[in-house]
Structure formats: C-alpha cells, structure tokens
C-alpha cells in the first residue's frame, strides 16, 4: 500500500491535460505505479467523458463527415500497439518512460555520489532527470525556489517529510531544507522534475549554486 499520492488537484491537472510535458510524464509514471492515483485519474477522466457527452450542440457545430470519409481509404485501422519492450537493466521503467530513455541509456556520475540520466523533452523547460542512489547515499542538502516533483520507481528514500517507496510521489514546495537519503536494499531510482534550479545550502553552495543555475550540474 502506497502512502504518498499526488494531491487530487494535481491529478486533475494531469487528467485534463493541463500540465506541461515534464510534470505530465512524471505523473504518468505515478499513475502507472500507484493504483490509488490511477483510480483518481480514471474518475477525473470519466468526468471529462461525461462533460464531452453532455456538451450542448447546435447546428453550427456540424462538421463535415464527407471530409473525414474521404480520408479513410488511406488511413488503415492500426493493430493494437505492441507492449513496450523493457530495456535490459532498466526493467523498473514504466512504459511511458521508455521512449525518453533512448536505446542505450547510460548512468552518468553526478557530483555528490549519485548517478543520473538527464531526460529531454522538446518544448519543456523543466529540469528532468532520473537519479540512482546507492543505499545510504543522500542528495546534497538543498531547498527549492520552484516546485519539485519526485516519483520513486525502485527502492526508496527517506527525508524529514517521511519515507517514500515504489510508486510514491513527493512534492517539494518552497524553502524547507531537505536531504533525502536512499533506503537500505535495492538502489533507489527516482525521476525528479524541477521547475527552477535547486539551491544548495551546504558549505559548497556558494561555489556550486551559480553552476546549478546555468544547468551545468
């Protein structure tokens, strides 16, 4: 049983398609891994469906069936999509993440003793990365100037706000310092989406923060 779902208003943003690509991808992973969040999104989508069904229409809303029918000859009905094949070594990745990892993803050593894979989505201005932390390894203490979303895909981590396992969603608001540390067991793998560069608050901060702001770290 997961204990950390995304708040309902954020799941509504997701279900209504209002989120930018980065947060939307992260929420799709949460929904894939957490049955309670999935149920909430399905409920919201059912509301969307009901709103579409009950849309008030007038004769002005008629659209040309002939135009559509004339196109069908060239457009085959596609067979159902094949299930996404997991990438060897990356079996923890839900299907919606796989296309973004590339064919041969490679972990990159990051400053601070963890590894990461940056994720790029055209048209998205968030900083998005998948992180891997060995048990006991922590992220440098930091706080946020914007919102931060995290989804755990393997293992778990603990910080002052609690313990997070597979499927759990964490939202880092504002100024509180926190220092997430990977739990014992499997390495912790999580995706993180940052609205703004994080601000380090440890002793290296004056040196590293300007680099973080430029997206070099």
């Amino acid at each position, binding site marked *: 049983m997961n204990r950390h779902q995304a708040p309902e208003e954020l799941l509504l943003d997701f279900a209504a398609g209002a989120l930018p690509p980065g947060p939307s991808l992260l929420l799709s992973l949460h929904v894939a891994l957490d049955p309670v969040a999935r149920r909430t999104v399905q409920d919201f989508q059912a509301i969307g469906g009901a709103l579409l069904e009950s849309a008030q229409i007038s004769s002005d*809303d008629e659209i040309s069936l002939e135009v559509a029918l004339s196109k069908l000859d060239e457009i085959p009905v596609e067979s159902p999509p094949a299930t996404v094949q997991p990438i060897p070594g990356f079996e923890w990745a839900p299907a919606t993440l796989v296309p973004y990892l590339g064919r041969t993803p490679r972990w990159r050593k990051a400053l601070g003793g963890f590894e990461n894979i940056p994720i790029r989505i055209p048209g998205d201005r968030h900083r998005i990365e998948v992180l891997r932390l060995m048990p006991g390894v922590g992220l440098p203490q930091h706080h946020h100037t914007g919102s931060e979303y995290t989804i755990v895909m393997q293992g778990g981590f603990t910080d002052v706000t609690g313990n997070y396992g597979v499927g759990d969603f964490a939202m880092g608001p504002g100024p509180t310092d926190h220092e997430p540390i990977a739990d014992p067991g499997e390495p912790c793998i999580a995706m993180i989406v940052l609205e703004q560069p994080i601000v380090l608050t440890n002793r290296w901060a004056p040196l590293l923060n300007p680099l973080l702001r430029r997206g070099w770290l």
Partner: protein
Amino acid sequence: MLTADEAADLIQAIATRQDRAAFAALFRHYGPRIKAFLMRGGSDSETAQEVAQEAMIMVWRKAASFDRTRAAAATWIYTIARNKRIDHLRRTGRPPIEAEDWLTIFAPEEEDADKSVLAGQTYTRMKELMDDLSADQLVVIRKAFFEDKTHTAIAEELGLPLGTVKSRIRLALGRLRDALEREKDE
C-alpha cells in the same frame, strides 16, 4: 442519442471490420460534441473543426486499442480529443502521452478494489451527479476540462486563494464518489 454500449459497439465494429457506417454514426454523434467542447474552451470555430476532424480520424486509426472494460467510449474519445488539442497547441515534438499510452498506463491486472467508481457510470447518471455539485465546485471542474487550465491558473483567473480551489476540487470528487458509494451500499 447513443448509449455507452452502442458507442463501444461502433468502435469495435471499426476495429474488427473497418466498418465505415459505424464510423459515420460515431462521427455524427461525437464530431459536433468535440467541436462544441473545444469552443467552450476558447478555441475558434476553424481550429475546433480541424481538431474535431483529426480526433475522429484518430478514433478510426486507434479503434483496435479501445478496451471497453477500461474506459467508456466518451472518456476514450475525450482523451483523444484532448491530446489532439494539446498537439495543436504545441506543434513542437510529440505530446508526452499519446492516446494509446493511456491504455497501457492502466495496467490490466487491476483488482476490483482499485476500480474507478465513476468510470462505470452511465452518462445520464454522471450528469445527474454533477448537477448536484455546487456552482462553485462546478466552475472549477469545468474550467479544468474545457479550458485545460491548471488549478493554479484557475485560482489566479478567478481571484481565489489556491487553497480554496484545491478544496473545491477535493470536495467535488469526494461528493461524486460518496454518492456512488452510498448507492452501492443500499
């Protein structure tokens, strides 16, 4: 009118035998609705028409991916239309979640306990339930779906504190669910 079962049958007919008559029936029902829906969200008539056309063509192409046990036809078509609109707005790169991904997200091995309570409802029942929501709650829900606005943007637009918008969303969902839970118990 078209019931949810009839709509699902039509989609299945497209999937199994490329049934153009079934497509035409679906098109007549949902084409104008998609257009009206989009125009309520602020699209101009031309864009709404274009997106509605593209969405309906997508319904044809993806018919074999539709699974009536996982989503009602209107919900599936809503998702496709929504993605088409996002696609239209961005026109850069692919949208993050393709319509077919939505179906893979919803893992097949779902247990009954996790089933969406609203997903199984008929449209008339959903409409009744939604009519029971307060005007304050409805305006937020409608803005989210019709205008693709985040709850933060809705709060700004309505000049409301963020907390108020959050609680309206939670209350609305809670009320819909409670009403259905009560019916189930009776």
